[in-house]
């Protein structure tokens, strides 16, 4: 009897059989009972077979009247007929021709599925499923788990196929989880319907005509090949408004303002900047971290050896709720660190339901705090904290692992700097991406992880620096500073309690520091990702509100930014310029006669409110200072010129010094380059040569020291700031820096803050300031990273052979540029165009707009939040008044105050979000 084969087939398990028929498979009567039921109603005796699916896809079987499962076992498997929508025998055999045996057998298929030997279908990958589902997944048999438990628990077959969404968005689909999944695989994908919010087949076909032509189901293709081939999932977003073209106006008249353009220029630039940053993240090659993965919890626990400690220097506090395997990994990683250090581990079990939790009792020397009832994260941690005895306490999540050396480095940092209240490590995801290199806090209480998803080897994450806080996943604090309770209970059940802890330290005058060489791997949120996302988000925003109510002024102070604009003091006649260029010459002479070089080219830039000012007049300087302050520019970085002790263009600052009531804040930037006929600082047609003899250097340093005495002079942490424009032209930068430091010290200053400008030859060198004896660098856009304009221009100026660049694309390059392992102050530029100086060889930027400038400025403020603290939160603008370079915030006829308004808008918005 054929039916016997059915029952004896290893494709069917005894367990399932008994469940469906209530009898033993060897029981002869059970066959009869099974066969007596009409085909369509026969009980399901294996999860791997879908009778309806089989009958629909095999009309010949339906016609024959034979039991479909029996047909599959007897002949279907060998003929590679699919038993289930998620089991594709052709796909399996194509991937590995021998895996199902010489003649594909149901038994081999059963083993393949039970032991997850390979993916049974492009739609289902057991390994990916296991990774995604986490601890609730069984040790093997992922497809069985998915079909029997996962579907009802709301899990998805793959991250793109959201059958629940699919059912909700297709009226003809049965909302039953399995039926909607099957509907998509059998029909929906073939028709190109969207599989969920993350994948739309019709768009995929539209982007890749070859796939449309081949007629293959789009998601099937994407999962099978497209992903590997680097094909992109087209997002189902409304058509993006293009970057509007800059509008032109007759000379001297305002540029027309279209409200739609204002919004579109901002949005388009934001998208461009986001894309550039995303591209950088995607360029990273992920190298998973070699971490401990315990499979046998008991054996893992048996291997743990903790030191017996009477008076530990360090207490490692680990809160636990289930996930004992992670906890064992965590403890093994601590042990592997084996510092020459007296430490204890205080483990707080918040009433785990996992039976393995009992095994923790067997760990010698472990301080185990067991809660009688579930207390939630914060109370559990607080209870454990009360038991900690060490000078330092390391808060360590149980799903984190200390990489070798991390413990010792954190302890050493606290040992060596007694103003540090806490230190945090570099935290990685198991896939090798950066999780955080410290964190920042916005005034609205939201926080961000520095370098999230970036390449942890990027230079910007490879140096130690102070941060606003470091996450509680692995935070080492001085116990004495914490007080009675570790975390404030007002943050129960969890979230933001670690921010609050660090803010308590900062409020007490202590610092928190990120240590790049201490590395921790953190699974992140394994303990929470099964909760309702909305519920979690509500807890977070509620606690952010609490943070702001408690720490508002402190967070705002931490987030303060100063804006400094480069300032050209050229605008007044000098004997030198009178001689070389004619009597009364100033840059205005060139500015006023500039002509557009091509259609749509915005020239000339004619001054509006401040007029063609003369900087010998105190009124002009006062007007500038007041205008700057009104829009949030805190001070000017004034170019200083000295050629062989001959000072040039010093008059404006002389006026400022003589008028202490002018609210003009400034610092000096020594413009150490030759003056040439070409305005290029080069070696040809030199008018005034920059010299570096001792007398010159001495007089420069003396001037800097002398000016720094003015109360309006800009300082960083109390040290007057002094910049050098072209540091690499200095014959001996270190000696210069040392001389500066000595001179400032002699004059009674606590120091000098030396910064170099990333100009000309310094732009792409990433020279460490310390290598020059300096403290920091300053970005100098658009130099070195300008992106050429792609469209052709209609040239209207005879003999013009200049250069055109694209403003938004250039901004994007500066926003997404490589980070550096030292303080580099970000800068922005509103526009740039030196046609006034180079009528025929000018360089200009197209598609400028105040709104693009605003988006760019906001992105640079985000960069400051990530990389700078305290007085070093500086944003430079190139420039306040480089009129002949078309780079000026000062109002002109075309744009009026719009550049200043946009800068102000960026600063005002960022004062909250």
């Amino acid at each position, binding site marked *: 009897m054929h039916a016997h084969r059915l029952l004896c087939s290893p494709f069917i398990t005894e367990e399932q059989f008994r469940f469906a028929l209530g009898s033993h498979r060897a029981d002869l009567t059970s066959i009869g009972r099974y066969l007596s039921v009409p085909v369509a109603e026969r009980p399901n005796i294996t999860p791997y077979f879908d009778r309806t699916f089989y009958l629909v896809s095999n009309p010949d079987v339906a016609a024959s009247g034979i039991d479909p499962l029996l047909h599959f076992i007897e002949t279907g498997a060998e003929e590679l007929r699919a038993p289930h929508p998620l089991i594709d025998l052709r796909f399996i055999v194509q991937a590995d021709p021998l895996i199902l045996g010489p003649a594909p057998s149901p038994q081999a298929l059963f083993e393949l599925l039970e032991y997850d030997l390979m993916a049974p279908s492009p739609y289902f990958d057991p390994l990916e499923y296991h990774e995604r589902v986490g601890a609730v997944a069984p040790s093997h048999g992922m497809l069985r788990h998915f079909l029997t438990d996962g579907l009802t628990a709301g899990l998805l077959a793959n991250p793109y196929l959201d059958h629940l969404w699919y059912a909700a968005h297709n009226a003809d689909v049965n909302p039953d989880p399995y039926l909607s999944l099957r509907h998509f695989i059998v029909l929906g994908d073939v028709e190109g319907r969207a599989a969920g919010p993350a994948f739309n087949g019709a768009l995929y076909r539209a982007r890749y005509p070859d796939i449309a032509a081949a007629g293959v189901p789009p998601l099937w293709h994407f999962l099978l090949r497209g992903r590997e081939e680097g094909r992109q999932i087209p997002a189902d977003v409304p058509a993006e408004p293009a970057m509007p073209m800059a509008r032109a106006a007759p000379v001297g008249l305002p540029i027309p303002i279209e409200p739609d353009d204002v919004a579109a*220029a901002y949005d388009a630039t934001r998208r461009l900047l986001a894309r550039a940053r995303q591209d950088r993240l995607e360029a990273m090659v992920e190298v998973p971290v070699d971490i401990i993965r315990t499979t046998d919890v008991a054996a893992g626990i048996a291997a743990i050896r903790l030191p017996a400690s009477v008076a530990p220097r360090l207490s490692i506090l680990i809160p636990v709720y289930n996930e004992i395997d992670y906890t064992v990994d965590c403890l093994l990683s601590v042990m592997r660190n084996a510092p020459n250090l007296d430490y204890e581990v205080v483990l707080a079990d918040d009433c785990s339901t996992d039976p393995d939790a009992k095994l923790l009792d067997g760990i010698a020397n472990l301080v185990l705090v067991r809660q009688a009832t579930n207390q939630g994260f914060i109370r559990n941690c607080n209870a454990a904290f009360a038991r900690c005895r060490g000078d330092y306490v390391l808060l360590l999540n149980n799903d984190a692992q200390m990489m070798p050396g991390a413990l010792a480095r954190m302890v050493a940092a606290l040992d060596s700097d007694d103003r540090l209240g806490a230190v945090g490590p570099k935290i990685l995801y198991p896939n090798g991406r950066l999780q955080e290199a410290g964190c920042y806090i916005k005034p609205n209480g939201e926080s961000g992880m520095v370098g999230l998803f970036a390449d942890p080897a990027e230079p910007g994450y490879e140096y130690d620096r102070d941060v606003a806080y470091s996450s509680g996943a692995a935070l080492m604090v001085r116990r004495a500073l914490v007080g009675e309770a570790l975390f404030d209970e007002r943050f129960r059940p969890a979230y933001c309690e670690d921010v609050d802890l660090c803010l308590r330290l900062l409020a007490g005058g202590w610092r928190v520091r990120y240590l790049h060489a201490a590395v921790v791997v953190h699974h992140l949120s394994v303990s929470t990702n099964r909760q309702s996302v909305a519920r979690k988000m509500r807890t977070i925003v509620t606690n952010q509100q609490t943070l702001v109510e408690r720490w508002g002024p402190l967070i*705002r102070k931490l987030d303060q930014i100063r804006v400094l604009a480069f300032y050209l003091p050229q605008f007044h006649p000098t004997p030198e310029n009178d001689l070389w260029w004619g009597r009364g010459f100033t840059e205005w002479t060139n500015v006023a006669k500039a002509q557009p070089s091509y259609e749509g080219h915005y020239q000339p830039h004619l001054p509006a409110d401040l007029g063609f000012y003369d900087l010998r007049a105190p009124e002009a300087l006062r007007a500038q200072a007041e205008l700057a302050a009104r829009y949030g520019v805190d001070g000017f970085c004034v170019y200083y010129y000295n050629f062989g002790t001959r000072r040039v263009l010093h008059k404006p600052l002389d006026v400022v010094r003589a008028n202490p009531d002018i609210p003009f804040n400034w610092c000096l930037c020594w413009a150490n380059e030759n003056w040439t006929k070409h305005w290029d600082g080069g070696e040809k047609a030199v008018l005034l040569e920059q010299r570096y003899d001792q007398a010159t250097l001495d007089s420069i340093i003396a001037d800097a020291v002398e000016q720094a005495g003015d109360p309006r002079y800009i300082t960083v942490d109390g040290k007057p700031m002094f910049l050098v424009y072209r540091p690499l032209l200095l014959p001996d930068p270190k000696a210069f820096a040392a001389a500066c430091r000595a001179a400032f010290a002699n004059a009674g200053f606590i120091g000098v803050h030396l910064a170099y400008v990333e100009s000309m030859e310094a732009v792409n060198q990433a020279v460490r300031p310390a290598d020059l004896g300096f403290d920091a660098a300053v970005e100098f856009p658009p130099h070195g990273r300008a992106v050429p304009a792609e469209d052709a221009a209609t040239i209207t100026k005879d003999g013009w052979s200049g250069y055109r660049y694209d403003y938004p694309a250039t901004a994007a390059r500066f926003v997404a540029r490589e980070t550096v392992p030292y303080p580099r102050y970000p800068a922005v530029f509103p526009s740039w165009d030196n046609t006034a100086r180079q009528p025929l060889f000018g360089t200009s930027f197209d598609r400028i707009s105040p709104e693009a400038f605003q988006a760019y400025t906001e992105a640079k403020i985000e960069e400051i939040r990530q990389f700078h603290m305290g007085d070093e939160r500086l944003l430079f603008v190139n420039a306040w008044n480089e009129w002949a370079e078309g780079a000026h915030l000062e109002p002109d006829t075309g744009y009026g105050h719009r550049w200043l308004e946009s800068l102000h808008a960026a600063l005002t918005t960022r004062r909250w979000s």
Partner: protein
Amino acid sequence: MADPVVVLDEVPVTIIGHPWAPIGMGEQMRSHVHACGAVHLHHRIFDIFRYAQRSDVAHSRLLEALEIAVPVGGIRIFHVNGDEVDTVIAAFEARGGVFADGYNIIVPAWELPAYPKVWALNLRKFDEVWALSEFIADSLATAGVPSHLVGQAIEFPPGPCLPRRHFGIRESAFVLLHFFDLSSYASRKNPEAVLEMFARLRAEMPFRDLQLVLKVKNGERAAEEWAADVAGDPQIKVIATPLDTFGVKSLIAACDVFVSLHRSEGFGRGLGEAMGLGRLALGTGWSGNVDFMTAENSLMVGHELVKLQRDAYPHWRGQSWAEADVGHAVALLRPLLDDPAHATAMARRGQADALRTHGSRAVGVRVLRQLNRIVAESPKFNGATPVAKGGARRKG
């Protein structure tokens, strides 16, 4: 232990009122839609009358995805006034809703210290009342109506603004902005006091670069006539074109100080929005606006309380409101004109305070607390089968 948040996810929350209307009740409702979004509530909105034009891009962005055509049970938050309750309930039922099958909350606006008793009867048809300000809560209490204070949100989503040039506002000037209302009962807004204040400032500082910008309500005859009078005065700019949300936000951001010498305000949105955008606020130190204005974060103008004149406002009998001291308003603003740093510091403080107490998230958290309380305590939900299946859904 029952977890109220989980239960909340199973209860539909619908915000009902005039979501698309370019009027105060519409703004009040939209501010609550923003607030609920900020705290990740699964809320829906329902337009009770469907009269209003739907042309404002910001409204579409906020509302479109949330709107439902047929009302459902669960918790329903009505942003309607006490005098329209009957028509609203009738319309609600005509559109397929069953008023009795849910938990109904009303969030009424009102501008005088005592809430009209006749309307209070209407409020009792609801399960509870939410107050937009302490002032309104006190007013409701005079009519024996208890309420829960939630406030309203004054936060605009971040983004660019139209520049001063777009409005023809002088870029160099120190700009005072006033929403100039000459419609019936406009004496509550007291626009004449603003004009007088500006006249005094001009008299004291004839060559100071000041400009008064008056946003006039569209189609208001008295205002248009008045506007004709000041046409040609370079120091007064009248804006009579209707503005959408982007335009209003831009206009507020374009001013230096938002001025309101109101006799009373239920909440005082304009002042709050200006503070949220980092602008100075100058207003009568009385009524709804003192929920977010303090002497440290804004310019609070002294006043005296006076009895309302006959028919100065609906339900005027026995009520009082504030007469702002114009001289004090001038005295408050003058020193700041000469000390912009102080003005900036005050505006920053104001921005931080207003967004902390009346940002979308702050209001959302208060709404969330009320909803959790209702779900946990109301017999309509407690222990009973949820009214309907909510939209919450887990992804794998």
